[in-house]
């Protein structure tokens, strides 16, 4: 094994160790377990945005729509269909993913700014549907009246509602599954065609890659991941909110990805951690917390254009 591979393994082990032990080191540092859970879920969403932005090179500014659809999918399942957490997750993911797949066929015909604009427009369509369809979604008040259910393993039931630690480990398990799937895809021949498209679309086309079709697949996969993250988010809050579909939420995800480092796999998770922790801390001091997060974002983009993680990697090398 080369020194580079060993270094990568050590970093990976450190990341997973930090995640696995989070409930134990966060509390002494003044945090709380539910905060770590939020970081995981929003980090997963930012990683899904980055699956497109950092590895396919197309910027979706409407990804919160699929996140919100996942949340409503999970919430509506628990409220009206069945008291099953796994089913809620699967249906939430499907709702986000299938809507993404359908709209993706239209979205991938455009590039650059136009791509971003079309994603915003479709995203806002879902936002207004969630906002207006009060009888189903609860409208502006959001969807209430459901809660995450214990996971039934047959022999025993895992209580994820009242035990914050149990729930954290359940979310970490889900996070690991999806992050693993993303990493697996990125290392595959298909993943390399995504990177080819990011690096040079014309060259990719002239290697015989049907670029639109590949961007569509990447977009659809990312919407499935996003739907899954959204479903988890509904479980975190026992609540789904139309603001979860709004384009400002999409902007937050893009911000997390860019701040953390969009060329690195783990960057968006770090970005989400910084965002969520700052939000938690600053919003207890001032209602204008966003201006401080925004200031940090501007500083990162100006001085570390590769993001926080990109900067750390660069200085280590």
């Amino acid at each position, binding site marked *: 094994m080369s020194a580079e591979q060993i270094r990568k393994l050590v970093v990976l082990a450190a990341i997973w160790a930090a995640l696995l032990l989070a409930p134990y080191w966060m509390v002494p540092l003044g945090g709380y377990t539910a905060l770590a859970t939020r970081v995981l879920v929003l980090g997963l969403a930012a990683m899904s945005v980055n699956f497109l932005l950092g590895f396919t090179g197309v910027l979706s500014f409407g990804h919160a729509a699929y996140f919100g659809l996942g949340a409503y999918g999970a919430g509506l399942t628990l409220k009206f269909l069945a008291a099953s957490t796994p089913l809620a997750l699967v249906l939430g993911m499907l709702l986000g993913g299938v809507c993404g797949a359908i709209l993706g066929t239209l979205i991938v015909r455009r590039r650059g700014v136009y791509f971003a604009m079309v994603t915003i427009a479709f995203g806002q369509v879902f936002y207004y549907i969630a906002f207006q369809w009060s009888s189903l979604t609860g409208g502006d008040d959001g969807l209430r009246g459901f809660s995450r259910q214990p996971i039934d393993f047959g022999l025993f039931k895992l209580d994820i509602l009242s035990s914050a630690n149990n729930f954290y480990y359940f979310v970490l398990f889900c996070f690991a599954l999806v992050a693993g799937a993303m990493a697996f895809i990125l290392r595959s021949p*298909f993943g*390399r065609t995504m990177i080819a498209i990011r690096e040079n679309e014309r*060259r990719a086309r*002239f*290697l015989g890659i049907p670029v639109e079709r*590949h961007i569509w697949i990447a977009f659809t996969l990312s919407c499935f991941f996003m739907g899954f993250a959204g479903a988890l988010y509904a479980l975190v809050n026992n609540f789904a909110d139309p603001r979860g579909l709004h384009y400002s939420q999409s902007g937050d995800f893009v911000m997390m990805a860019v701040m953390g480092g969009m060329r690195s796999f783990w960057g968006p998770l770090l970005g989400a951690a910084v965002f969520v922790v700052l939000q938690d801390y600053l919003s207890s001091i001032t209602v204008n917390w966003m201006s401080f997060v925004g200031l940090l974002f501007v500083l990162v983009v100006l001085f570390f254009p590769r993001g926080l993680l990109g900067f750390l990697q660069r200085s280590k090398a």
Partner: protein
Amino acid sequence: MNVLEINNVTKRFGNLVAVRDVSLNVAKGEMCAIIGPNGAGKTTFFNLISGFFPPTSGNIVFDGRDITRLSTHERVTRGMARTFQITEIFPELTVFENVRISAEVAGGYRLRPWISRSEAAKLHAIVEGTLKLVSLEGKADRLVGELAHGDQRAAEIAMALALKPHLLLLDEPTAGMGDQETFQVTQLIRRLHRESNYTIVLIEHDMRVVFHLADRICVLDQGRMLAQGTPQEIAANETVQAAYLGNAA
């Protein structure tokens, strides 16, 4: 047998006729050079062949099948590879990774979420063989964006070769190069033609390169095919001299 048959192709952009009623046949194993003054329609002609846009009229037959309305990537899948006047590569990937993407697409793996060890080994061998062919085997792990211009061109050609093309289209392969690099790339193209029997169509500005390499030269002028022939015939052709060589040399 003809690899490429272009029949009476015309391309209009509004009022401008960029390519006017041009026909060209390219036989298997042949190296055909397209020359002409600036604005003669050479690049438009190339873009018609490789499928950037469809012709206004006329048709294009490749390997015996009409490809006039096929998209770019479908033409590539049928065995047509091209390079560009301004090198098109994946600058932030290594030479090896650049060529591997090409080999994976050509091998039909582009939609695969995984490949087996034996498939990976096979691809590895293809990439190494291709890099050897263009003399880049010692630079496999370098980032393409950091290489000298001539080596970038060689890498771009390697990506085209890894597609196992029946026809190689080279758009000004020595554009913007110094003498040393021009020589290096010319030698490479010559080897591909003479030793590996690739069928090649190239656009070229550098007359030394053209007369040194080509079996046949086609002269375009104001979108029309002015003359076709061996380098000797073209050199002796008075219309060509008047239109092009006269004021170029």
